[in-house]
């Protein structure tokens, strides 16, 4: 049996996935990246190997992706997360023609073809609004965790606007709303809608009329998926574990690369 690994070193989390030659996922892991990307990549890979009951010698090809991709000496090759998310998404949802990946420090909207090839992409990397980090900061200023925020947002009855695009300004806006007596639930839903607006601005011309999947850690947040589907007026396809899609794509590309050697 041949085995392939993908390692996705993101700004917040490192994900690893092992695939066998029959395209079965046999091991995964997700860990906080921390400051030392190099260690994080290897830790995550070892955890995935353990999950798959394999040793590193069993692996035939390894591809690294994500911001830390160039800091993994054991990887045979590096591919950007854009290409990997495209490939991984297409594997899970062959009907998808667009991918929205909201990660820790940026968001990307990718147009793909039926083979999971990237046709076009746009990326927001200059401001934190529309990123996982933004959500974390906002949850922090409400003194709740991300799961609670998702739950709270559903209970919101009124629509409040969080208009600032800058994390720092948005935080002061949230604090002043809170101080002014606005309910946490309303603020939470306002935060999701703010991100949805930002991402929609980036996404709408790519996603319109297409089946869209959402990937990345932020896709785990039900509140976010809800707000974004509503704003884009389309049902979003979300994998059981959307956070692992980048690593999955990397492993799939590793297999292709290995077969082409």
């Amino acid at each position: 049996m041949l085995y392939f690994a993908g390692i996705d070193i993101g700004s917040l989390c490192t994900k690893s996935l092992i695939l066998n030659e029959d395209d079965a996922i046999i091991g995964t892991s997700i860990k906080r990246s921390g400051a030392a990307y190099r260690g994080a990549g290897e830790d995550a890979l070892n955890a995935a190997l353990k999950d798959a009951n394999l040793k590193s010698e069993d692996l035939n090809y390894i591809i690294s992706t994500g911001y830390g991709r160039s800091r993994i000496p054991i990887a045979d090759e590096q591919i950007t997360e854009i290409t990997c998310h495209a490939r991984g998404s297409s594997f899970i949802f062959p009907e998808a023609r667009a991918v929205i990946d909201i990660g820790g420090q940026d968001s990307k909207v990718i147009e793909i073809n039926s083979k999971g090839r990237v046709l076009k992409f746009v990326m927001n990397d200059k401001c934190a609004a529309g990123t996982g980090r933004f959500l974390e900061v906002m949850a922090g200023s409400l003194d709740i965790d991300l799961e609670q925020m998702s739950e709270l947002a559903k209970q919101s009855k009124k629509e409040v606007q969080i208009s600032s695009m800058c994390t720092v300004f948005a935080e002061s806006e949230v604090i002043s709303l809170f101080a002014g007596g606005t309910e946490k639930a309303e603020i939470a839903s306002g935060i999701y809608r703010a991100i949805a607006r930002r991402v929609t601005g980036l996404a709408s011309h790519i996603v319109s009329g297409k089946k869209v999947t959402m990937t990345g850690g932020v896709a785990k947040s039900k509140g976010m998926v809800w707000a974004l589907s509503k704003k884009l007026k389309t049902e979003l396809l979300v994998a059981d574990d959307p956070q692992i899609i980048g690593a999955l794509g990397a492993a799939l590309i590793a297999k292709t690369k290995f077969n082409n050697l």
Partner: protein
Amino acid sequence: MSEYKLNRLETTKLIGNIVDKHWASLRHAKENGEKVAWCSGPVFAFPYAMDMKCHFMAGYSAYAGGRGAAQQLLEIAEEDGELIDACSYHKLHMGMAAAMRKNIPVRKDVILPLPDLLISGRLCPEMSHYAEGLYRKMGVRVTGVDVPPPHQKSEIKYFEKYVERQIRESLIPALEEVCGKPFNYDRLTEILIVLKETAMLRNECWEYLKLKPSPWTLWDYGVSIAPVFYLMGSPEAVPYYKKLKAELADRAAKKIAALEPEKSRVYWDGWLPWAFLGKFSRIMCKLGMVPLVGRYPWEFFPHPETIDTEGDPVASFVKQVYSNGGQAKDNMPSLNLPVIQNWVEDYKIDGLIMFSSKSCRMWNLGHNDFIAAIERQNGIPGVVIEGDMVDTRMNSFAQIETRLEALAEMIEARKE
């Protein structure tokens, strides 16, 4: 409960209808077989003289902003590829055009018919980009008029001649071609006569802003600006200002202030924040702060009170933009500083608010230098606040409130 009480004027309640009528007549122009122009820069008197219905770029933006439609149009524009940091007036127009092109449902009162002629007054080299954008996307005919702001007094006459010649050689022939008839100079004169009368009444109203306490505010004047500008020549203009003047005279006699008690009097620099007049007003009221005078409404606009209605209408139209004020004193800060310094005395100003727009760089370069120079000469403090005229996302009211509170504290400290 605020310790300050805002007394709203009765007259300004009438403006909404007058303005709505204007935009409605534009929306229905095509059905009535009328020609439509869109215009940036101060030259819309010329299509009016040809009985065209005319949009004015910043006027439309203020209207759409005031209607609360700006955010949606901006987002439509961005979804159509416009960049977030670009001029928001430009983007509003591109958003409106995209909504038309793609049939995106938006409120009907902010959608205008595409023009037969776009007049790109290049007063600002950026805001005229919408004309190029619409030309490229929708093939609308454009004629440009370069309207450069002078930097020195010696340039005023020379620029005036340049603009006058462009109007005669490019704009008027283009209008004649589009409308298929000779240019109506008599109608232009008629418009200018009404405009002049309106502006003279307006100037009398301005005098009331010098009273302490003032019976009205810059915000009141902001909403009253259309009759002396893009509604020039309209039959409602003179009656509106007569009524306004009477109301102000009455208030002055009865010593009724716009804000009671009037704690501090401030100067407002930069564009008026059209979509947020109410929000700013609430913040300033809480601080007892009254905005009274500003470069944009005073000097950015031409000075129609100086029009020579007996003379050549084209020449006298241009003269009010250059020799007699307007552009000449305003757009270039070097010529502007002494004007503001005089206002600080005339209007008994206690502090300066420099509204620095993040999407328009017309006024914001030099804001801190203005504060420094005015503080040196007139001894009053000032703050810069950052925001946008119509884009909610660029205004952080929590930050703005803090800065305005700080200004109020600085003003208090100077008084002690």
